[in-house]
């Protein structure tokens, strides 16, 4: 008997759920209740709290409003890109092109504003269109020819970066006040980009957990063939997910351009890996079918606090990367055990 088969059979052998329960559905639904929410976010909140406590104790200037304002200013684009990445990972695909597409959208915004003197709304629309086009390419090519999105988006990574350099002649475009206003606007003391990111996270989480589209995404990530044989065509849904990822990248590109007041063709280099790391720390499965945008948000926060905190205690760049790497691996290992617990019958 091969071990695979044995493994398959294991859940059936356990007698626990055979126990006769006349009204089995009345009790203990753990998801969708406040307890289910707490269970899901508990670990991440504790980790975040621990990090903040440790850094506050080890240096007396960490726990201050300035620190948190710095973090809040840095992370909106990361949150927005990671939100799209969460969707992509949930359908068991991957999008490696986000960093480069961000660079391309940035470049287009900068060149449009400075060289062609487009009005701001036109430049923003052009950036959004560029993000959508890249997402459409990723989605259509990988779905139409059933190619691994890993390779298709790796190709897009190169193409988009090439495009960004071609548009700008590899020169950073200084824009200045034409766009800076976007990032500087504040509402109730919080920057507009940060609020936008929060709205996107909440909206994306609601779409994921409350809409048919979100349900289909989870189903496709769990077992695409079963979805197809249930009479649901998974292909348009997958294309839309790549489109959304592209659009969110464009939004993040505008925010970054606005924050720096310039368009650097190298913007977003390595961003794809940061986004994947944040999503994975948040507990979304790389195998698809399971994930949450809220936990991704915590993932981004954890990485940001870690980076800021390590800088505050005077850690060098190499130490920061080492620690971040360890945290990523530790998060995945912990998640592995959490899942084992969840999938085995309750005792």
């Amino acid at each position, binding site marked *: 008997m091969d071990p695979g088969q044995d493994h398959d059979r294991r859940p059936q052998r356990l007698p626990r*759920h055979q126990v006769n329960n006349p009204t*089995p*559905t009345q*009790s203990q639904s753990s998801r969708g209740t406040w307890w289910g929410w707490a269970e899901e976010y508990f670990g991440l909140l504790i980790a975040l709290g621990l990090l903040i406590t440790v850094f506050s104790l080890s240096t007396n200037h960490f726990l201050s409003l300035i620190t948190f304002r710095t973090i809040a200013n840095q992370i909106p684009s990361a949150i927005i890109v990671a939100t799209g990445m969460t969707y992509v990972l949930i359908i068991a695909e991957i999008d490696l092109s986000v960093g480069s597409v961000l660079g391309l959208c940035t470049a287009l915004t900068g060149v449009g504003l400075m060289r062609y003197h487009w009005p701001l709304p036109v430049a923003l629309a052009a950036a959004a269109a560029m993000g959508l086009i890249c997402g459409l390419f990723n989605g259509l090519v990988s779905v139409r020819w059933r190619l691994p999105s890993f390779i298709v988006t790796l190709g897009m990574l190169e193409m988009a970066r090439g495009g960004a350099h071609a548009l700008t002649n590899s020169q950073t475009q200084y824009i200045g006040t034409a766009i800076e206003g976007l990032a500087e606007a504040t509402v109730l003391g919080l920057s507009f980009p940060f609020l936008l990111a929060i709205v996107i996270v909440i909206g994306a989480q609601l779409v994921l957990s409350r809409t*048919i589209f979100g349900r289909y995404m989870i189903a496709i990530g*769990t077992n695409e063939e*079963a979805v197809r044989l249930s009479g649901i065509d998974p292909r348009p849904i997958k294309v839309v997910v790549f489109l959304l990822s592209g659009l969110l990248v464009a939004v993040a590109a505008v925010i970054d351009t606005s924050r720096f007041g310039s368009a650097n063709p190298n913007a977003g280099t390595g961003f794809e890996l940061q986004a994947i790391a944040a999503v994975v720390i948040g507990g979304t499965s790389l195998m698809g*079918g399971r994930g949450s945008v809220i936990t991704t948000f915590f993932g981004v926060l954890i990485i940001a606090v870690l980076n800021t905190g390590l800088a505050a205690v005077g850690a060098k760049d190499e130490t920061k990367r080492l620690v971040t790497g360890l945290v990523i691996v530790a998060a995945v290992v912990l998640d592995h055990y959490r899942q084992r617990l969840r999938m*085995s019958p309750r005792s």
Partner: protein
Amino acid sequence: MATQPDTPHLFRAAGVRKSYSSVVLDSVDFDLRRGEVHALVGENGAGKTTLARVISGLVAPDGGRLELRGAPYAPRNKLDAEHHGVRMVMQELNLIANLTVAESIFLDQLPHRLGWIDYRRLNDEARRLLDQVGLRHIEPTRLVKTLGVGHQQLVEIAAGLSRNCDLLILDEPTAALTDPEIELLFTQIARLKAAGTGIIYISHRMEEIKRISDRISILRDGQLVATKRSEEIELDQIVSLMVGRDLEEQVQRDQRKRGPLALRADKLRSGAAVQDVSFEAFRGQILGFAGLMGSGRTETMRAIFGADRLDLGSVRLHGAAEPVRIRSPRQAVAQGIALLTEDRKGQGLLLAQPIRVNLTLLCLCQLSRLGWVRGASERSEAKRWVNTMSLRCASIEQPVVQLSGGNQQKVVIAKWLFRDCDILIFDEPTRGIDVGAKFEIYRMLGELADQGKAVIVVSSDLKELLALCDRIAVMSAGRLAATFERGEWTQDKIMTAALSGYLATK
């Protein structure tokens, strides 16, 4: 070809038992002499393959004794069995498609120098071996995937012969072979016999068995019912031993009245597995599909459902004169066809997801407003189905992976009933399900037919079909061999039809 009765026993099994959820082998006594071909025949699930797996070390028996060359023999695994000179060539190929022929043959003993493969020696040895088995035209450096399935199988047999091999088990070796390839195989078998190798030959091709075997053993429901010398037994005797006379009497029940025509398939053809299939299914009745493994039943259903390509032929639905073109499962479902696949876990369920998500997947539109799922109605619908199906579970949020096979199948059935299709195709609905749940599922299928649905059941368990169906279609070698009405059929007739496609010499 006659073997001396006093030839020493190479292998002997006494009282071998094996059960999974049900009994698969029940005190089987079996022996094999040197230089003999001993054929094993029986219906699907009679225990042929399990016995072969016990002998080749893939499965440990629950009880009984095995002897090889007079000494006790208890292989721990396949490798151990191979050390004892026992090899099995499996139904599914073991070859790795991207390796060369030579590499595949010698995969576990590649000649090397300090870890670097010695390709000259490898290819020379492979050449010698291929010549020996008559595959002179195959280059050892060719990639396995460039060979046809038949030749791949011959290469695998060659690989089996490359080691010291006293006892060779061939499980359906000719299923994918063409005539000349079969001849080649038989020459090899004759050569091995002459060299004193004992061969266990599993097949349902009676012609072949009569031709090359010295003795034939018939298995039925895990019991070895007879062992005869090949020249002493006729085909019809083998068939009646396979089905068993004593089980003839069955629950007599009137045939359900035939409702309007629901589905008419004409001359379907799909891939290699479906050659020529025509049948009609009526509302208010259960139509069974009988046949041996690999006779093309599953493939026929998948082609009708749009899961595989339908190459030729037409499907008409609900009595319409015009055929419909179904290119995807989505279109099939839109036309009111449901297919509950054979592979529940791989193709039917979202195992990691809760029962609720599985149940409502097909009907989310009805449970939502403007794309937003109404959580309360979804939960109450899911609970309603859990109660109607008397599903045993902790809650609707329990992941399906934790349920027993029977309860998982109920989830699949409920999911489709929710969608309210008119034509329901069940592929092996009771495979791997305990007896209690089986009868519940039979009852459900009966109720569906009584409600006026057209129910089609593919099953390898003939008794199940006899009890359940109003009509039975029998497939054989990719063709529809016969259709019987309730009352007309006997197990013998069905079994003969199921074998018919394999009798004709190719």
